């Protein structure tokens, strides 16, 4: 028996396991650096150079460049660190939700309000 092998498939959902953690290490390390305002500014001044400095691979850099949230997740990004990248872009978690589900932000917010009706 092998605890690691009990994987559950959940549609539209990933758990950030060792495989993703390895894959996304450089990307997440860059996003972790965004806790500092100075680093956020350095990124803004030279996005490509900043990404290179952290050793992002092509897939990760492309997802950063195109602000592709699902692409960032697929490239090993962890949502807790990616949220700091979203902060740079001035996006909140509902902007991210909309971007990932293909809804408008208003639709996304309406979906959540609807979920709260009659509880």
């Amino acid at each position, binding site marked *: 028996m092998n605890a690691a092998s009990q994987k559950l498939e959940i549609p539209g959902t990933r758990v950030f396991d060792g495989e993703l953690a390895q894959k996304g290490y450089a990307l997440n390390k860059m996003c972790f650096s965004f806790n500092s305002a100075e680093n956020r500014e350095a990124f803004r001044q030279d996005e490509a150079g900043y990404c290179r400095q952290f050793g992002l691979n092509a897939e990760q850099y492309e997802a950063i460049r195109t602000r592709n949230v699902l692409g960032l997740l697929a490239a090993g990004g*962890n949502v807790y660190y990616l*949220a700091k990248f979203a*902060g740079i872009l001035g996006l909140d978690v509902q902007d991210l939700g909309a971007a990932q589900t293909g809804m408008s932000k208003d639709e996304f917010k309406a979906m959540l309000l609807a979920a709260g009706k009659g509880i």
Partner: protein
Amino acid sequence: MAKIVGAITTSHVPAIGRAIAGKLQDDPYWKPFFDGFPPVHAWLDKVRPDVAVVLYNDHGLNFFLDKMPTFAVGAAPEYHNADEGWGIPTLPPFKGHPELSWHVINELVAREFDLTTCQEMLVDHAYSLPLKLLWPNDEKCPVPTVPVCINTVQYPLPSAKRCYKLGKALGEAIGSWDKDLRVLVIGTGGLSHQLDGERAGFVNPEFDKAFMDSLVSDPEWVTQFSNEQIVEKTGTQGVELLMWVAARAALPGRVGLVHSNYHIPISNTAAGLMVMEVAA
């Protein structure tokens, strides 16, 4: 001997910080959430805790993947809140309680919990905002605190079963503390929400309600589930309910429900709130 006065469990979301800063407590969007708290304030006035042990999860402020602990306990004289990347104003530092910290650390390691101890530690919104919600009128949090951080960032996370055991041992450790002080246990996180992936925006009020009920009547109920099953039922960040499991488990024996609230949504989150006391 020290006495646990009860446990408070609540959700945490960065947007609460923006709502407080913007004084939006009576805004129609926020009112059903903030209205949950006056009964908690009344209860705190009654039980007057001397110190709080706060179970929370770090969101990539203090810990990175180079050193990611399963369970970390703070042992600092003071804990600073800091910029998490979106430049929200930080709250004043939180006073620590090193004596209780070390007592808890000694007792938990003796009970075979493999802690990471932190004599310096930044605390994020999951720590600062719940404390601000409990004591909104004090400029600084009026009680010293002891942080207990549970990993919800990188799998494998500790199972609900392990978190239950942690909470139980924590309660025993507090109970064995040779000081005549009143200790409050706080658990912050959840309830159902999912920020990432195509299923973003997922909430599950049925499960949340069942979980909240179970904390009173059958607190080990949720330990039947793996973390993957909890994610399936509550969303990727719904797994933050682990902090509630541990906080409840710190209360010895049966509990009485003093107060609860549940509201959807704040931001992307189903917000829960419970106050539990040890049954007489």
